[in-house]
């Protein structure tokens, strides 16, 4: 909420500067987002009128302007493109001082003397940025100070008000806080002028639950005119348009007191009689803004005997509104029921300043003050004659709320010991009165809140009030040592596992990305098998782009990879960990954490001189590394297909019957759906499955005592035979002595025959008990060759070599 310094100063003594005031407000819970200092310009910065604009002889971008400043004509060099003859401008004369402190000196610009400067709004400190020079509004007097155009130079504070403190959405509300902070009092409003004879209208409230208080008063003899400058300036400075004196006064009272005031043209109110009643089905009303609304019994009306006049607490009707011809008004100040106002406004699609105030709840006591103040201001600004004291119906009057406060509770919550008197005095500054003395046993007292403090409901609310008055800065900062509850590990194992995986992935050269969980269309490739009903769809999306919760990390990763390649990056190696969602089972669906990898583009030729176009093995190697780093055997795999992967290009890595990872070449359709026009390889790891098989702790294995015997074994098999199966046969057939198997070459060539391939393995044999003898190993190898022959039709290629022969 914007408020000006002078406006606040009408109601309370202020700290010395706007900055000091901002600090006071912030420490009360009302941070000041901005202070716009009213500009106080050097009087030597004057209004000038541009007479002539001609090109600068030595510079294309500059212009030479002849400017009339009343007493003389100046020749000024100007760089702005918007300068034009006839324009009223701010001229800083030689010797004048700009707001940033620079003093203007006589100078030559590109060889031409400039006798001053035509200023932009930025140069005058009026705005943070500006384009070109400032064209002064209106028709200011040439030669006069520019300050006169700006007005009084009242500082404007933009104060943030929290949702619980709607009582401070007004100048007086803030003034009360400032007064409390300075242990002072808010000033009283001057009394309205002595009433004349005009009687108030008759008022009937149909249901006191709808309208808790209703006051009305007449002001006559009005002359509708523009508002006086002070009123205009205050409204405009705080973001409101000035309309005319009567409308402006009601708006001003709203900003000052937080109380909406409505003015009816009294000549349009039949019989000077006002009914506050529910609308009847079928009734219609044309609103002030020209809109016609169809009414229903959920709407409260202000009506006369014949017709609806206004939507109570929301908006006036056009017909009974103030016009230029209005001379007599009925002023309404009321408290309408918040829920009723909210529901009615919502049902009609209306949201007005007034409705917001009534929904938040106005101060029932302030209804009277605000009405008096309106009458007084109309007398002052529109030469109105104030009628007899108001009609006042207050059927919904409630006693003040009392809350008990225990001193011990306060100490336990705040961590400071505050004495009884200090508590009572602190609350008294906020007009929260102690109504019963402290009682002995639990040191409790009862306090009564003022009518405008609807937020003070429980003991803790009062404790906060004491803390605010004492000052949050007076609360000591303490760090208590303490233990996490027993039996609690501190970090869930899946969370630490995820951290490890991501660190390993980064070590393997993958960059972590974070993409949105809310996505647009879900590509069919990642639509769950259970069908589109298993997708979460947002009922109130921001846009079509953000409608679904993702079911897979792949689209986001591929999309990011494609974007980066288009930016000219050679290769994208990306990893992401995140939640993926399914809508079943009800009610909350299911969430899983996946880790996705994508590899696409070309490797750096310097780093990988022999880089291949097919990067499947590179990606697979990374995934194997990652799993091995977690102590997981990643050797067991099976062909895997879903629509994410190109035909015959998907694989799953399994352990203990769980699918830990799916990987392969991304299908063209999925790549295309994510705007990636390159082959890409990807993998998806399932965190939960990995957590189930990853050993929590590694156990020590004794280091080998006896030497190993190495053998290289090259076999020839049909091309269609899968290496994984051959390796499995070797592993199973190698016996206890076989320590490790590693493929080191795959060879295809004419000499083998076109449908054959050779696989070469490095085998390591070792016993934990003794040094192996060659013949034992030879026996094991020949058993293996037989097993391979039986299982895969493998034949030996070129014999078994002792590994020493291989570099």
């Amino acid at each position, binding site marked *: 909420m914007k408020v000006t310094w002078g406006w606040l100063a009408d109601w309370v003594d202020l700290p010395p500067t706007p900055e000091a005031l901002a600090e006071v407000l912030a420490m009360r819970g009302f941070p000041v987002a901005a202070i716009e200092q009213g500009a106080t310009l050097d009087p030597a910065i004057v209004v000038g009128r541009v007479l002539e604009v001609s090109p600068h002889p030595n510079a294309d971008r500059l212009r030479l302007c002849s400017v009339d400043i009343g007493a003389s004509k100046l020749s000024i060099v100007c760089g702005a493109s918007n300068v034009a003859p006839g324009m009223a401008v701010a001229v800083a004369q030689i010797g004048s001082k700009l707001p940033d402190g620079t003093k203007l000196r006589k100078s030559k610009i590109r060889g031409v003397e400039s006798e001053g400067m035509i200023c932009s709004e930025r140069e005058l400190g009026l705005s943070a940025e500006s384009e070109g020079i400032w064209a002064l509004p209106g028709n200011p007097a040439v030669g006069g100070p520019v300050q006169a155009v700006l007005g009084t130079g009242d500082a404007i504070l933009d104060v943030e008000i929290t949702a619980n403190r709607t009582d401070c959405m007004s100048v007086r509300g803030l003034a009360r806080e400032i007064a409390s902070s300075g242990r002072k009092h808010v000033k009283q409003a001057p009394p309205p002028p002595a009433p004349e004879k005009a009687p108030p209208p008759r008022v009937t409230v149909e249901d006191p639950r709808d309208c808790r208080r209703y006051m009305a008063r007449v002001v006559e003899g009005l002359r509708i005119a523009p508002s006086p400058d002070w009123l205009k300036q205050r409204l405009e400075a705080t973001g409101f348009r000035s309309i005319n004196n009567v409308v402006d006064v009601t708006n001003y009272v709203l900003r000052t007191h937080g109380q909406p005031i409505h003015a009816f043209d009294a000549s349009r109110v039949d019989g000077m009689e006002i009914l506050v009643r529910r609308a009847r089905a079928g009734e219609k009303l044309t609103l002030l803004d020209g809109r016609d609304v169809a009414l229903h019994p959920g709407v409260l009306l202000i009506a006369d005997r014949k017709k609806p006049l206004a939507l109570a607490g929301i908006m006036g009707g056009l017909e009974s509104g103030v016009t230029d011809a209005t001379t007599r008004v009925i002023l309404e100040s009321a408290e309408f029921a918040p829920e009723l106002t909210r529901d009615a406004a919502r049902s009609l699609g209306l949201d007005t300043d007034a409705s917001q105030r009534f929904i938040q709840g106005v101060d029932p006591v302030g209804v009277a003050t605000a009405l008096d103040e309106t009458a007084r201001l109309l007398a002052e600004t529109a030469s109105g004659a104030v009628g007899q004291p108001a009609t006042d119906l207050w059927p919904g009057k409630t006693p003040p709320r009392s809350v008990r406060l225990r001193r011990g509770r306060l100490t336990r919550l705040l*961590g400071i010991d505050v004495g009884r008197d200090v508590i009572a005095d602190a609350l008294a500054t906020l007009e929260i009165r102690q109504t019963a003395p402290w009682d002995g046993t639990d040191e409790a007292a009862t306090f009564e809140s003022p009518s405008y403090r609807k937020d003070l409901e429980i003991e803790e609310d009062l404790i906060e009030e004491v803390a605010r008055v004492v000052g949050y800065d007076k609360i000591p900062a303490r760090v208590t040592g303490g233990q996490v509850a027993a039996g609690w590990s501190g970090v869930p194992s899946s969370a630490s596992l995820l951290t490890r995986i991501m660190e390993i992935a980064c070590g*393997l050269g993958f960059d972590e990305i974070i993409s949105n969980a809310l996505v647009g269309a879900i590509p069919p490739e990642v639509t769950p098998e259970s069908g589109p009903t298993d997708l979460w769809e947002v009922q109130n999306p921001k846009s079509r782009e953000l409608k679904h919760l993702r079911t897979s990390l792949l689209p986001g990763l591929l999309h990011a990879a494609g974007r980066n390649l288009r930016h000219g990056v050679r290769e994208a190696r990306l*990893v992401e960990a995140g939640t993926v969602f399914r809508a079943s089972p009800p009610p909350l669906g299911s969430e899983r954490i996946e880790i996705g990898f994508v590899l696409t583009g070309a490797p750096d030729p310097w780093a990988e001189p022999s880089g291949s176009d097919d990067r499947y093995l590179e990606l697979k190697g990374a995934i194997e590394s990652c799993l091995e780093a977690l102590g997981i055997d990643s050797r067991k795999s099976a062909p895997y297909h879903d629509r994410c992967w190109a035909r015959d290009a998907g694989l799953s890595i399994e352990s203990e019957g769980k699918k830990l990872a799916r990987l392969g070449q991304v299908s063209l359709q999925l790549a295309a759906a994510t705007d990636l026009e390159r082959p890409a390889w990807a993998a998806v790891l399932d965190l939960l499955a990995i957590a189930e098989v990853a050993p929590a702790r590694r156990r020590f294995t004794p280091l080998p005592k006896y030497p190993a015997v190495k053998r290289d074994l090259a076999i020839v098999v049909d091309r269609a035979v899968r290496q994984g199966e051959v390796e499995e046969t070797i592993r199973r057939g190698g016996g206890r002595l076989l320590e490790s198997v590693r493929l080191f070459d795959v060879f295809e060539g004419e000499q083998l025959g076109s449908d054959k391939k050779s696989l070469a393995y490095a085998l390591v044999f070792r016993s934990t008990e003794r040094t192996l003898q060659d013949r034992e190993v030879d026996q094991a190898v020949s058993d293996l060759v037989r097993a391979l022959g039986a299982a895969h039709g493998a034949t030996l290629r070129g014999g078994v070599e002792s590994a020493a022969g291989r570099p």
Partner: protein
Amino acid sequence: MIERLDALETEAARAMDAARDGGALEEARVRWLGRKSELTQILRGLKDLTPAERSSVGARANQLRESLERRYEESRARLGADGGPSDAAASRDLTLPGRSIPRGHRHLISQVLAEVRGIFHGMGYALAEGPEVEDDAHNFGALNMPKGHPARALTDTFYLRPEVLLRTHTSSVQIRVMEQRRPPIRIICPGRVYRNEAVDATHLFEFHQVEGLYVDENVTLADLKGTLDSFLKQYFGPNTEMRFSPSYFPFVEPGAQVEIRCFFCSGKGCGVCGPLSGGWLEVLGAGMVHPNVFRAVGYDPERYTGFAFGAGIERLTMLRHGVPDIRLFYENDIRFLHQF
């Protein structure tokens, strides 16, 4: 035979002198003195020669071997004790770039999350997680925001079904933990949250929060202030100046807002803290857990007190690392990712 030995001597000496590094010298040794070298063959063949030849050739061959061995030792000394090159720069360009080994980068948000987790872990806080798809009761109801509460209108919530939504804060995790455990509780709940907000340089519809909760029998506002002061000093630096002032959140009472003095301009006003804001940057919201929240999870508010706090991870990151636009975190531009 003697002539052959003379020729060997010349060739071998040249080879050893020419060796520029240990490897080349070793090659020369194997070639000229090794088991398969011509000289060794000749020495081995001595037994097949006539006694006269054997004596003359033998003497010459043995003398040659000694001289070559000496030569070898000299060359070794010349190349340095480790046999390494003494003037390698002449033979290879050491300024060639190293073969780059790809190095991945953790996302800056993840780095900050890990650091924040670590700081609170050090203060005895356990990590708690919960679902991102939440029900109304955990996201609002139990947090003192019953249906119709005005504070609900402040949060623009994405709804999936009438009672199912995307959590708007990780406070829902606090409720889930309190439903399952008895105090004492010290947890932080980091995670992704969703708000249906207009996107600009400081707002996104998805972002990360970290919230904390400490419940025990005598937890006070002073403990909250001390904890947050300690966190901010660890995260932003030991000279961080904190301002602790009243604020409002429905699930705490008293409520507090925590700001730090802008460390870019020390409070004079700048592009980060706003030219006119007096140099305070809002970083955390906090307060004492509202008794209605305790009642909702079956804790006795007379017995237990507690504090809760929350901060936006993106905001903490932007402030400390000078990232001007929150959208950069989700664009995943490698040029951005590689900066951290």
